[in-house]
């Protein structure tokens, strides 16, 4: 990437049809994210956090304005190239962990690599590496049902980072976790950010998450209200 930014949105607008009228979910969003950021979108429920993450993650397209993600324009991206972009460069972490229940921890983490036609030995190496990052290498053969919530979310993190993406998008990753587990997974992500220089963008209500953010973007009614860089001890 010759640009100095990873993601850039300009006058981004998202409108949803609501019966006879429309609902403006995002309006005039101009944001730039640089490589290696550890940023969070905060704001009340319905303020547009998920909508913005979905557009940045190429799962949805803007109604107006533009979103440039790693050199591609989301608004003109075909289904196929969007899928390819996600496959190679973007990892997702969700509020509900969304592990596939019939597969083992290992197979869940392996899945994104299967789509890349990677050799078995290479896959195995990357999967075990990712599981080691999140401290679950010994649970590789467990089924998701045998894991705690915190462990499940760590598997989801391993699945998001196994392909070493530039960008990880995490929508309310701690909402279903208790305090201890929340801190644990946030620390894991901080380490990944430091170790692999992965860019993280969160959406959250959670004070515990905000405590780790380097940058906090406040949304309200689909608009950016505040955009602040935070000084944190742990990032020094």
């Amino acid at each position, binding site marked *: 990437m010759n640009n100095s930014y990873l993601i850039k949105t300009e006058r981004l607008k998202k409108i949803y049809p609501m019966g006879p009228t429309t609902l403006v979910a995002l309006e005039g969003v101009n944001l730039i994210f640089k490589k290696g950021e550890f940023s969070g979108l905060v704001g009340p429920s319905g303020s547009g956090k998920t909508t913005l993450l979905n557009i940045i993650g190429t799962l949805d397209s803007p109604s107006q304005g533009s979103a440039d993600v790693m050199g591609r324009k989301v608004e003109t991206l075909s289904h196929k190239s969007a*899928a390819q972009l996600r496959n190679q460069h973007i990892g997702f972490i*969700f509020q509900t962990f969304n592990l596939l229940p019939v597969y083992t921890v290992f197979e869940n983490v392996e899945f994104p690599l299967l789509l890349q036609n990677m050799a078995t030995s290479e896959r195995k190496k990357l999967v075990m590496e990712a599981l080691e990052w999140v401290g679950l290498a010994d649970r590789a053969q467990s089924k998701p049902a045998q894991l705690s919530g915190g462990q499940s979310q760590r598997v989801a993190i391993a699945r998001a980072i196994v392909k070493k993406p530039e960008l990880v998008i995490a929508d309310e990753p701690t909402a279903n976790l208790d305090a201890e587990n929340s801190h644990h997974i946030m620390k894991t992500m901080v380490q990944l950010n430091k170790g692999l220089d992965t860019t993280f963008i969160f959406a959250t209500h959670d004070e515990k998450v905000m405590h780790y953010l380097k940058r906090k973007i406040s949304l309200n009614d689909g608009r950016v209200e505040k955009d602040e860089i935070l000084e944190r001890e742990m990032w020094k």
Partner: protein
Amino acid sequence: MIKFLFKGLIRDRSRSLFPVLTVVTGVFLSVFLYSYLNGVVSQMINSTAHYQTGHLRIMTQAYAQEADQNPIDLAFIGVDNLLQTLNEKYHQMLWTPRIKFGGLLDIPDENKETKTQGPVIGMAVNLFSEFSPERKLLNIKDAIISGRMPNKTGEILIADEFAKKLKVAPSDTATLISSTMFGSMTMANFKIAGTVRFGIAAMDRAAIFTDISDIQFALDMQDAASEILGFFADDIYNDEQATLIAASFNKEFKNPDDPFSPRMGTLPNESGLADYLNMVGSMAIIIITIFVVTMSIVLWNAGLMGSLRRYGEIGLRLAIGEDKGHVYRTLILESVMIAIFGSVLGTLAGVGIAYLMQVHGLDFSFLFKKTSMMIPNELRARVTFGSFIIGFVPGIISTVLGTSIAGVGIYKRQTSQLFKELEV
């Protein structure tokens, strides 16, 4: 990837079990019903051919008009000559003459007074000649219940049921009271060699079987026969060939002005089975169509439920970077695995049970007590090459079709919409 999908199918029973069961059931029923119909039809054709009409039948035109009354006065004279001609001209067929006759069978006591008596239908065939196909056609050996095959002139076989009614046993004497070809009354004494049961109600009730020369002698039918039957050497009716032979024969021998000239007819026309066979044919098609349509609809719905349940998984896979088309193709691939598995299982089960019914047969004789039709008492299925594809192919088609239709929903939905299901 295939291995990955396969693991999913095996581990998630709810994903595979219902569709597999549906396919197995549908395929099984199709295969079984097809084999069953097949069996009933071929059995009907066989017994009609063997006991009644042959694959081709020659009678005088006059006889043909009243054939069901066995009018021996209208029988064909000049059998030996005609047989020789037939064997020369149509040597691919086996030709055999028969006489069907009616009368009274009288059983005398020690004083030669009537002990018991009953109306009888007789069939006189060539029992003794080693070239005669009759023993095999009528399956006489297996039909014998007591006694033995007749081996000299003057000996007859009698239907077992009829023998019990008349209270006779092998080595007893029976007197046939009938009329000759020229209308005068005649009596002939026979010795009962054995009793038989063919499993055909119409024949088991009141029939005797004699050698044709005995009846030609008794009924004054020198060189005459009610009919000459032709059979394909492999005993399989071939309509195309039969029609050709009949046409060529009729062109040469049938004389519209002479009611005593011979005419030849084919099995379907002689037996009235033509309409029946057509009906069975369309029934088979209807049954299979119903199965395919029902199965497709059921599997389509199963596919819909399945993919609804799996929106979460599908949304996740899309988020991870799988292409929509790829997701769709893997769903189809899964259904192909299910289809093959289910169809193989269903076909094996259907063929297996049909085969059991082919070997053992079910006895339905109680249903046909009063009938004079040549319906075999035992219904047997028949497994043919068709049995193997009749369920297999529709099974695969309907599974894949059902899933394809169900999967279209994935295409119609927006990615983010599918993805929304994740948040539920």
